[in-house]
């Protein structure tokens, strides 16, 4: 791929760039960055999908399998408590509560194959985040 010559911050720069599945990927000064085109259109700094972090919604940060559930409906949880374990690419990843609250609903069960951004646990927060 040939680099594009683009004026950035007042300087002519060589940039490799490509849109892949809704994200603009580019390489600048030896580093690779990506940004969602949808988020670019929106003002403000919120990211969509996995980036949209709302502490009462525990979503899958990656596609994978739910291997362990530590909580049940109605259970009280504290910030930092482990809620469940996901596995992807032979690696385990523990999802934790970001705030105090109770478990309102669990929308996944052990063994489920889940997609990126899928809601797994709905919390009811004790205090406003």
């Amino acid at each position: 791929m040939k680099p594009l010559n683009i004026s950035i911050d007042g300087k002519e720069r060589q940039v490799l760039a490509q849109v892949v599945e809704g994200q603009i990927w580019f390489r600048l000064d030896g580093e690779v960055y990506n940004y969602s085109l949808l988020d670019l259109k929106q003002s403000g700094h919120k990211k969509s999908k996995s980036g949209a972090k709302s502490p009462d919604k525990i979503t899958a940060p990656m596609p994978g399998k739910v291997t362990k559930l530590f909580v049940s409906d109605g259970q009280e949880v504290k910030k930092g408590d482990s809620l469940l374990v996901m596995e992807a690419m032979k690696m385990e990843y523990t999802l934790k509560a970001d705030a105090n609250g109770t478990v309102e609903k669990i929308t996944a069960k052990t063994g489920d194959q889940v997609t990126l951004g899928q809601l797994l646990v709905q919390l009811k927060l004790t205090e406003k985040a």
Partner: protein
Amino acid sequence: MRPIKSVAIANRGEVAVRIIRACEELGLETVLLHSDVDINTRAYRLAKKKICIGPAPTAQSYLNIQANIDAALAAGADSIHPGFGFLSENADFAEQCEKNGLTFIGPSAQAIRTLGDKVSFKTMAKKAGLPLIPGYEGADQKVETLLAEAQKIGFPVIVKAAAGGGGRGMKLINDKSQAKDLIESAQREALSAFGSATVFLEKYLGRAKHIEFQIFGDGTGKVMHLFDRECSVQRRHQKIIEEATSPSLTEDLRRKMGEVACTIATLGKYKNAGTVEFLLQDGEFYLLEVNTRLQVEHPVTEEVMGVDLVKMQILTAQGNFVFHPQDIRVPRGHSIECRVYAEDPYQGGIPSTGKIGYLAWPEGPRRRYEYGFESEDTITSYYDPMIAKVIVWDETRPRAIEKMIRTLKDSTVFGVRTNIPYLIEILDHEEFRSGKMTTRFIETYFAEGIKQKTSDDQIKKWAGVISKHVTETRQAPEMGHRSGPLSPWSSYWRGV
């Protein structure tokens, strides 16, 4: 032994490509045994024949012995190369191959059993007087006995539940004064957690280096070694950066460890390629285990020794061993390998899956890339996240480090995030540069991963300017003829 004409490859990814290359250079036919989702991989495109052995989950495909053997036979292969991981260290698989008239390119099933099994390996090493990590696994569980044994081993000592695993019931005893309390508490925990109070003792190696020797058995009972590698940079026991030779060995240690490696392999009647792993601390070395297969990090040995281990594996399997002792007497220069994983370095290394976009591994003197995917292939969550290995060689270790940093900075992967920025920070760390890193290097300095230095606002600003430019370029009429529907894939390329 009979000559090999057609090799079935019971593996995927970059090692499948590596084996295909070796076979092609030897004029052999290749048969790729793959899962249904792996048709979009480089190995699939390169193999002469390909047979689907089952669906994506490994238990139904890459770990299914019968499916692999049936497919290899159906394709007319006369041998199987298992690569590494999957069935490569499965003695039953090696046995089934031979029973079905397929040459298993690797050690005998018997050697896999004796050397690959921890208990039988330890027994054999102990009998031969080879150095193991000092410990106590006796039946006498009286506190006084355990105390005496702990003192004999020398503090610090780890006490762990015999029935345990994953660190539960494991305690570190730093000196004699706390020993009794900690042993008793470990016994209580072991009893409540596993229903058995039996505990083991083991010398705690908190500053150990991981050193391993590449061994090769010629098939007549003779084993030689092709020097050492150091793989101390590990995250949760997964190696990330490997090098040959180790910066930590004196000539004396190197000679002694090499002898121990050859001794244990000879005792196990080892043939073909294998690796003997050690821990090294304070000038003392301890045998850890034997990996009865080719290693992921075999390329660094190939670079400093000037050999092709995979070709040699195939030739040895058909009875044409061709290493001459004088050819493998001295390693030359220094080689480093980095494993490129599909993960987000700025989010604690969580896996990154998806379609790969543009991919570039720019060539240069003594840069080597081993990769299994190309542009438009998809990284799935079914398998290991390693997407490539980058290997460099240079005359000295400091130069090899500089070359690796340069090479990684030149590489581009779009579509999935990679650990490349993480690797660069590790290589640039003063402890890595000094060569003094131990197996605790990552947990000490990189436990939390790394931070993105550029702010989200800045990236968004750049992304805005660049995406606008890309869109405009695409729409420019002089950008040439375009056929087919507009997609992100055909988007901006055609015009450039």
